[in-house]
Every structure is written in structure tokens, then in C-alpha cells.
């Protein structure tokens, strides 16, 4: 039977980095929704103030965790990876030149 040799520290960094990256993505989505409501005018100034404070506290908490755990880099790399995937997919969807290239590769 083989034994999986896992470096505990790098495992922690990896998993924690992934979790925080996902929390950041959710935070971004929340922020976008908050913005839409604010711009749509369905919120009072007081509500916007409360929303803004909550989001700001979330930002501070996330930054704190990242610094404490030393996972700033691993979070960034997860997010860069996600960005690259999205950029790549978009590039392929909207650039006719890439369609041609792909068709040629398949031929």
C-alpha cells in the first residue's frame, strides 16, 4: 500500500487559499448587487450606509485572515487562474480570428 505524502503546511495554504478566494468572489458578487440596488434608487441613504459598512468590515476581515495566515499569494494565484480561464473563454467567444484558428487546428 502506498502512503500519500502531503506537506501539511502547503496543504493548509492551498485549501485556505482556495476558500478565501471563493469568499472573495462571493463578496464581489454581493458588492455588485449592492451597487445595482444603490444605483437603481431602491435603497435609502441609511440602508446604503449600513450595506457599505458591512461590506467594508468583510473586506477588512478577509484582508486580516489573508495576512495572518500568509496566504495572500495563494489567494492571488487562485484568482489569477480563474481570471485567465474566463479571459480565455471570452477571447475564444468574441474573436472570429480564434474560431478560424480552432477550425484549422481541428482540420
Amino acid at each position: 500500500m502506498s502512503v500519500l505524502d502531503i506537506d501539511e503546511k502547503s496543504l493548509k495554504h492551498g485549501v485556505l487559499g482556495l476558500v478565501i478566494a471563493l469568499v472573495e468572489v462571493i463578496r464581489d458578487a454581493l458588492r455588485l448587487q449592492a451597487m445595482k440596488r444603490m444605483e437603481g434608487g431602491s435603497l435609502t441613504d441609511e440602508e446604503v450606509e449600513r450595506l457599505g459598512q458591512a461590506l467594508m468590515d468583510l473586506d477588512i476581515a478577509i484582508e486580516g485572515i489573508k495576512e495572518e495566515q500568509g496566504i495572500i499569494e495563494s489567494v492571488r494565484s487562485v484568482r489569477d487562474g480563474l481570471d485567465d480561464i474566463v479571459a480565455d473563454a471570452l477571447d475564444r467567444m468574441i474573436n472570429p480570428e480564434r474560431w478560424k484558428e480552432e477550425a484549422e487546428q481541428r482540420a
Partner: protein
Amino acid sequence: MQCSDKTEVTPRAEAVEEEGRYLYGVADSGEKVSLGEIGIGGKEVYAIPYRDIGAVVHNCPAQPYRSDDQEVVEAWVMTHQKVVDAACERCGTVLPLSFDTIIKGETESSAERNVQDWLKQEYEGLKSKIEKVRGKAEYGVQVFWNPKVIVENLTRTSPEIGKLDEEIRLKPRGLAYMYRQRLEKLIKREMESKADECFKDFYTRIRKHADDIRVEKTKKAEAGLQMIMNLSCLIYKDRYTELGEELDKINQSEGFSVRFTGPWPPYSFVRGT
């Protein structure tokens, strides 16, 4: 060299050795020339002619060049590049092929024969590509901007952004946060349309001096810069100074910088049609 059944069962190193042809490019010459032992691994580089064109090759095993050592791979690519340059000097126009293009032999037909068949099959296409790039070279044009400088300029020139920037200072904490998000979004949108505008402007200006242009994917840049356009331009060899002058003007604009590289063999104009 034919590969017999016996060698397939017990392949000996020497037998497999010459079973492929590594292709550097296709030259605009049907001459049967040797360029000497300048190939990857010191191999002899020579031409396999078909009619008035010829494949520039060396003999190699029928397997790709692979190494985990980055430096080794870089040296190979450099040699590939040098051979293409040497072939250009000798034969005039050469369609460069990318690193690690290998045609292998089969039991019923030798590698040399397969190269000739390939030239024969692709003759029309290769010939028209040679016509297209004759007397021309490829240049890389990459335009960068410094987002900080561009944002500063926008804040100064856009009344909408300037006003929002003012307002934020007077708001309580939570509201200021939300307004700052809004400001960032606004700046992002303005930056995108600015990048679009610049792309169109620069493209038209560069297009005038190039015979053909390929728009390449932009890459990540260093030192806080962002690449906003990445072009491969096919240019008549005696006309690159005109493009250079145009690029100089772009380079002078505040917040912009240009990287102009070349001449390269016309790699980008060989792939596809």
C-alpha cells in the same frame, strides 16, 4: 532509410537514429544545398528539394525533442532560429516552421520520401506563402500603458469622475465605501473605452505602414504596465523606418510605451492561410 520488421521488434539505436527529418522551414530554392553542421545537436542541415522549393532539414530520430531543463530547450530554440536565419541568407526567402516540427518515416516510405510528398501536396499553398512574404520581415509591436498615469489624466479631464471623487470626501464611512466602488467602476469603464479608442487609433496608424497585420493576444506585463495591444506586422524590409517613426510618436504620448522587435522570420504569417 527503410525500417524493416526486424528493427521494429528489437529497435537498435542506430537504426532508429535517422528515422525522421526535423524541419526548420521551406526555402524559396530548389537547390540541393548543405548549410553545414549548424543544426540542433551539431547535425548537418541540408535541403530536400521539390521543384523550385526545398525543405530545410536535419536527420533525427522520429520523436520530439523533449527536456525538463529549460536552458536546454532555450538553446534548441535559439539554434532553430539561427538555422532559419542562415537559410534566409543562403536562399533568400524562407517560410519558418515552429520548433520541433518533425516528419517521420514509415515502414513503406522513408522520411525523406515523406518530406517530398508533403512538399508536393502543399506545393501551391507553400508557394503562395513564399510569394506573400518575399522581401518582407516580421516585426513585433507591443503597446503598453501605465494605468496609474492614465487614471490620473482621466480624473483630471472627466468631470463625472472628478465630481464623484470630491463627493466621497464628505460622506460617512459606509456611504463613502459604496461611492468609492462606484468610482472604481466608472474609472474601469472609462479605461476600457479609452483602451478601445487607442487600439483603433494606433491600429489605423500602424496599418498604413504594414503589408499585413496579425492581432495577437495581449500578455501580462511587468513593472505596473499593461499591454493594450500586441501585433505581428509583415513589413517590406526597406520600410520599417517609417513604422519606427510612427511608433516613436506613440511612445512619446504620456503614459504610453512601445516595444518594437525584429526583424524576425515571418513565423506569424506562415501558420493558417
